[in-house]
């Protein structure tokens, strides 16, 4: 199986472990990730604040290059890149003249035939069916799944998961043997690009997120976005200073969680690259749970028949 891969800037820099873990996980499931040749920046937050055509052209070029290579699915692990690519695809689909204009700017044929998949959609399409049979080391931890803002919004365009209380990552964590806890900050803002300019704001926003996760006894926070990761992980000293306590639970990518569950080692998954040390408590080996029929719950809220 061949799937297109768009790394974006972060996979090559601050989030190398994200790419390492996605690649390693894909390998376990015999999926070949093909990096789009000559890819460029997606434009991220800067382009669409400055120049509309630039913000459309950058992602369009990436997709056009993928089309040229005959790639039908592109996995975009970074939530911001995923968001930009999806929105541009949507806008060009809705406006054919704009699509023609953009094609002339990038000087490439653009059809809009490629599917843009975020990391969870990629896993659901290619891995989830075979995931449970491959789990050898259940990820037996209380995990707070943090989705952030860009993965599920705007719902009208992305049409992915429930926008206010997403569940897709929780389901994956449960399939990996984990306990996805119910918590309140799943989609709250982490501070995002304010990381450098307003570190105090990031410390406050990310601090609230971490505080709620820890209050609810989470042992790990699971993310699917390099920006969220860097704020929750790299800004931990500032967060701890803001909260005036010492929070030391690690932040893992969903690909790392699944990688651990299917038996990949910490180094392959790049766990050593995190700022906050990944020091998950060793738990007694558990029997791999056999999938049981879900317990029938009587819905007490049922309306009159």
């Amino acid at each position, binding site marked *: 199986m061949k799937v297109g891969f768009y790394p974006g800037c972060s996979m090559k820099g601050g989030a190398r472990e994200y790419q390492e873990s996605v690649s390693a996980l894909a390998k376990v499931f015999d999926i070949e990730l093909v990096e789009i040749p000559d890819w460029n920046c997606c434009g991220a937050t800067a382009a669409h604040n400055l120049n509309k055509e630039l913000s459309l052209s950058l992602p369009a070029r990436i997709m056009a290059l993928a089309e040229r290579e005959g790639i039908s699915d592109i996995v975009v692990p970074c939530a911001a890149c995923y968001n930009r690519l999806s929105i541009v695809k949507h806008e060009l689909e809705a406006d054919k003249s704009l699509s023609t204009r953009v094609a002339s700017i990038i000087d490439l044929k653009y059809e809009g035939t490629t599917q843009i998949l975020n990391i969870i959609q990629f896993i659901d399409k290619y891995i989830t069916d075979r995931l449970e049979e491959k789990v050898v080391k259940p990820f037996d931890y209380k995990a707070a799944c943090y989705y952030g803002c860009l993965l599920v919004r705007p719902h009208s365009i992305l049409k992915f998961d429930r926008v*206010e*209380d997403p569940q897709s990552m929780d389901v994956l964590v449960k399939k990996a043997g984990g306990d996805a806890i119910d918590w309140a900050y799943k989609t709250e803002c982490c501070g995002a690009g304010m990381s450098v300019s307003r570190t105090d704001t990031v410390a406050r926003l990310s601090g609230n997120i971490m505080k709620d996760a820890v209050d609810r006894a989470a042992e790990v926070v699971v993310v699917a976005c390099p920006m969220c990761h860097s704020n929750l992980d790299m800004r931990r000293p500032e967060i701890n200073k803001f909260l005036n306590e010492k929070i030391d639970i690690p932040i893992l990518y969903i690909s790392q969680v699944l990688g651990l569950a299917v038996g990949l080692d910490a180094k392959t998954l790049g766990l050593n690259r995190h700022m906050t040390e990944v020091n998950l408590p060793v738990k007694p080996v558990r029997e791999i749970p056999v999938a049981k029929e879900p317990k029938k719950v009587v*819905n007490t809220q049922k309306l009159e028949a």
Partner: protein
Amino acid sequence: MSRIGVFVCHCGENISATVNCEKVAKITGELKGVEFSTDYKYMCSDPGQTLLKEAIKEHKLDGVVVAACSPRMHEPTFRKACAEAGLNPFLCEMSNIREHCSWVHPKDDLTTEKAQDLVRVMVEKVKKNKALNSIKVPVTKTALVIGGGIAGIQAALDIANCGHKVIMVEKQPSIGGHMSQLSETFPTLDCSQCILTPRMVEVAQHPNITLHTYSEVEVVDGFIGNFKVKIRKKSKSLDEHLCTGCGLCTTKCPQKKIPNEFERGLGFRPAIYVPFPQAVPNKPVIDRENCTYYIKGKCKVCEIVCPTKAIRFDQEDEIVEVAVGAIVLATGFDVLQPDFFPEYGYGKYKDVIDGLQFERLASASGPTQGQIRRPSDGKEPKKIVFVACAGSRDPAKGIEYCSKICCMYTAKHAMLYKHKVHDGTPYVFYMDIRAGGKMYEEFVRRTIVEDGTHYVRGRVSTIYEKNGKLIVRGADTLMGGIPIEIEADMVVLATAGVANKGAEELAQTVHVSYDSYKFFAEAHPKLKPVETNTAGIFLAGACQAPKDIPESVAAASGAAVKVAALFSNDELTRDPLVALVNRQPAPVFSTCVGCFLCQSVCPYQAIEREEIKNRNGEVIKTLARVNEGLCQGCGTCVALCRTKAIDIHGYSNQQVYTEIMALLND
């Protein structure tokens, strides 16, 4: 040779300002077959009509063309005038030279010419018109009321009190509907049950009303005045004549933990149950899905304890066929399902409840005997948040309309809460307060000013649980949109009112139209609010759109008057402009070949099968036949008929072709 009269109206200056009416009358007066022509300032006025009548008599006219406004406006006026002068009214046609000509064109010779063309076309048509007689249909003077909530009850009582028979069908084991679940009603705070139950009893005891509870309408055939309805009476597993309603079975039933629908899941009921103490009829039914006997094959405790031996485990559903002349739909509404609000935790947190659940908590007959206790631990909530517009007016949630009743009941809830928990603090998050209605705004003011409810203008973004408290996060838009968080003990969501779950299927069964939200559609939003597009079927209450009690009752009485007016005639008269399948001498019988394409496209189910038999009683041909009572004259069948066997009275193929040819042959 025809003797047609042409009457050109000036309509004050509406027509004469751009059309030379004298010229139109003069030119068209010279057409072949036109005996008389004239123009007049107001044809519809009394002198105008007299002019028409006199001319018919004096010139022995056998056809009339009135060139004036739209036939939608005055066709009945002029046809009536013709009839009074002894001319068959269907030999009178209108030529619309106002909307189709003078209003849309400038003053010009071409405008006058167009008016002449329009009149000429109609003159040619009238030459082909045939004298038609109105169709008479008998009326069955019994009404069917579907739904036994307050709207259905009101409609049934009003019709029955006019002296007509009523059959009421209710899906639940008891009538009463949502109103029986309410605690107190705005804006007067009178107890809902106290004003409702006398009406329920009246329905049960009324000599003109037959009540079928635990029943559903399965099939509706026929047409206005002559509907045939099949009602499925679901088995109650009980002989109702023997049952005295002592209630012993309900106390002895070992199956006690079934969520009580009437209490909206806040309490439990046994498998054999009466929905609530004041139920009408006050006799139990067995819920077969949860009854131990039907699940495991043994138990029968109710049968053993029943003093009158009324339990019937082998009782089957019964199909009752009734003939009715009119139908009132009063099937009510529902509230939104919990999975709509993942961000509000409805269905996830026990202390996030909906408005109807709060009604049960506040009701003296409810699970807490009217004390406000939160469902999770039974403690009295000291801080409570009401969220208005939970789902309503929210395009993202797919409901763009205002549910109308929530502003008022939320104000009532806050007031009731304050009356019961004096040291409690109620908050209301709202978008706007819509309190249009008699004494409504004053009621909301009382909630705010006298009872000290904190009204916060803003929406709630999320609700989550932390340390046993519900954290309600929202914005106060009157304070510049500052984010606020309230640590509440309980949250009440004013969930949107939506159409009943089975509304779409029922609409299709009964053949009425419905809107995109599955609410039943009225014939005209302003002037025909209780009629549907199907003659003889009327609407009452919240099955049409969210309505409060006074509005539902008013609509029900309106529908009842429509039914009574219908029943005031022994026969119904309707226009004979219906389709007709031609008939010819044997052995052809008709050019109809019996393909029944017409049947598949007829929107009114008006096409029937007619079998032609020989003397031995053998079927030799099957033909289509139009039921004149059902046919609305839309002409879809005519367009589809492959052998041109169907035609429409008043708009025959020949007439339409004549009109076209008249234009082309100019």
